[in-house]
């Protein structure tokens, strides 16, 4: 039996052959995004894993025009591309402008530029690949690192349970700008990601989608389990899937509500919490954080 012929047609915005790690959540997520976006788009990409694994010169996995400038300016670069294409009449012809960044490049160092892009109303779809730490540089803590996670700069130790602050709620901050569309998504739910990207593409103005993308190297789990780990994050309430339109919550994805332990126990970054009684108290606090999300967004029922 011969192998089925492989076609690049549906993934021609983002092609195979890149250098992402096995099991990389965002390599799958970007494929899902680009399947929906198609070839008639231009992207500005922050420095980070996605940039590095897709464009080691002279190779490129991108089938669309794509630019990488710096770590913190992708929202501004995309703003400039959008302004230029508007002037050239290409936006009116249906060319889409995209911006991509990781959680560090989006929530931390690129936050000012992102807020500026929102506030000015540029017609850009910004997709944040949220793997909850600076993975490209070796798993350092970011503003998106969740409470209790051990990273190389918020390590668990004799006097530390790891990260001691909750995750920055950027989707809510984005929604507070009153932009037309904000959504959180998980790479584990393919149809949901596709639907949200499709919905975003149909709306004019700044749009923000934050996709939870598990990282086997940074989180410490078997690389074949990425989609399972991502699904658990959603089902326990720690990663609520919510959509906002013009600042108002319009849709949430209901969950089964599994205990957070189910999600935490399989990951090296939370392993220290299970070893002591004090650690278990921290797990109880993480459960409270999940319960707050469940109540705030009505995730159950």
């Amino acid at each position, binding site marked *: 039996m011969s192998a089925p012929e492989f076609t690049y047609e549906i993934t021609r915005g983002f092609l195979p052959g890149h250098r992402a790690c096995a099991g990389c959540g965002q390599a799958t997520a970007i494929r899902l995004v680009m399947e929906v976006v198609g*070839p008639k*788009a231009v992207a500005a990409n922050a420095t980070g894993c996605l940039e590095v694994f897709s464009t080691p010169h002279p190779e490129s996995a991108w089938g669309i025009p*794509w630019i*990488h400038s710096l770590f913190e300016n992708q929202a*501004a670069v995309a703003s400039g*591309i959008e*302004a*230029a294409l508007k*002037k*050239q009449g290409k936006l009116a012809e249906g060319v889409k402008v995209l911006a991509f960044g990781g959680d560090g490049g989006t929530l931390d160092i690129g936050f000012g530029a992102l807020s500026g892009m929102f506030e000015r109303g540029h017609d850009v779809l910004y997709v944040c690949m949220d793997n909850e730490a600076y993975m490209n540089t070796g798993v350092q803590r970011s503003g998106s690192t969740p409470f209790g996670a051990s990273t190389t700069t918020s390590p668990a130790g004799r006097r530390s349970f790891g990260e001691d602050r909750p995750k920055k709620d950027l989707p809510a901050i984005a929604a507070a700008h009153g932009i037309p569309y904000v959504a959180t998504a998980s790479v584990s739910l393919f149809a949901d990601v596709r639907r949200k990207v499709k919905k975003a593409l149909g709306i004019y103005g700044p749009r923000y989608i934050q996709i939870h993308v598990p990282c086997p190297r940074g989180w410490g789990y078997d690389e074949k389990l990425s989609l399972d780990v991502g699904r658990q994050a959603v089902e326990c309430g720690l990663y609520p899937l919510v959509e906002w339109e013009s600042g108002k919550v319009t849709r949430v994805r209901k969950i089964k509500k599994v205990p957070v332990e189910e999600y935490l126990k399989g990951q090296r970054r939370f392993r220290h919490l299970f070893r002591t009684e004090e650690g278990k108290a921290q797990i109880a606090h993480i459960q409270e954080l999940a319960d707050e999300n469940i109540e705030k967004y009505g995730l159950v029922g």
Partner: protein
Amino acid sequence: MRKMIEGSRAVAEVVGLCRPDVISAYPITPQTHIVEELSQLVADGDIDAEYVRVESEHSAASVCLGAVAAGSRAYSATTSQGLMLMAEVLYNIAGMRLPLVITAVNRALSAPLSIWNDQQDTMALRDTGWLQLYGEDCQEVLDMHIQAQKITEDDRVLLPVMVCMDGFILTHTYESVDMPTQEQVDAFLPKYDPLYRLDPDNPYTLGAYAGPEMYQEVRYEIQRDALASKAVVKEVARDFQAAFGRWAGDVVDPYKCEGAETIFVALGSVVGTLKDWADVRREQGDKVGVLKLRCFRPFPQDELREALGTAKRVVVVEKAVGVGAYGIVASEVRAALYGQASTPQVSCAIAGLGGRDITFETLDEMLARAQAGETDFFAGLRTELLEAS
């Protein structure tokens, strides 16, 4: 057409004549009049451009980067702290070989905070890969903007250009200038048509990273082309003269240097003061001349050798400090003259920092101290204010 106009507004008008598609800037004194006037010109429909009002200079430069990469002509203006905040992006624009002109209004750097003129800001950016032109008066600054747009978009160059303009001294001075017509500028400056752009019909990847096996060659090409751009700067100056009927500068510009024993080298508006002062001192029998350094990047080494080689001494008037070493321009002038059969004494006279006026008295002091053999000093220093070291 001749008109009496403030330097900033003259810049805004000429930028408009260059037909930018995208303008992006963040307000900062003393650049503000430029961007205010541009905003008004856009608001009135006199400039057909997208004006992107950003939240920082870092984003202003980034918006321009994106716009140029997408195939449009862009423009920004800033100064001092704004230039420092842009610095990261400025290196990136040059490294990606994106043609862009910005007006770099010269202002002191904090601390202490000072909104007044010196040239520490653009001197700090001399190694970014941007070409740097320094204007003596508003007319020259105006003309430089047209030339700069032509230089940066030349396929042999494709390096961005900063037109440096002394804050307040030029930006806020009314001067009679000859403003070219739109037809003249259109004839001189064809529509921007880049070799590569972000176009879905012909997708390119821009800004890929380079490993150790590639990086050095990219940087070498930037250096090679920056050095070679001197010929383009000269060529554009000649073309400009043919098109607009006035000579608007070579890479260096001598004034009364024939038979001069002492030649003062300077950049920007202080050159005007120096010329007036040289007239007076010449009448008094002192053999002084002035060499305007119009183009600091690319650095005109050959021209400096030729212009300065026969002088007895050279005084470099510096509005910046190479802290912990010597004057920045003086160091480069010394290097340019090194190894000649007879090398003039090169004195570095730092003055005019943070808006301190450089007066005839300051220049008299510089000449006297250089004649006495001093090679590195601050002129016009208020020694009574200094704390004991």
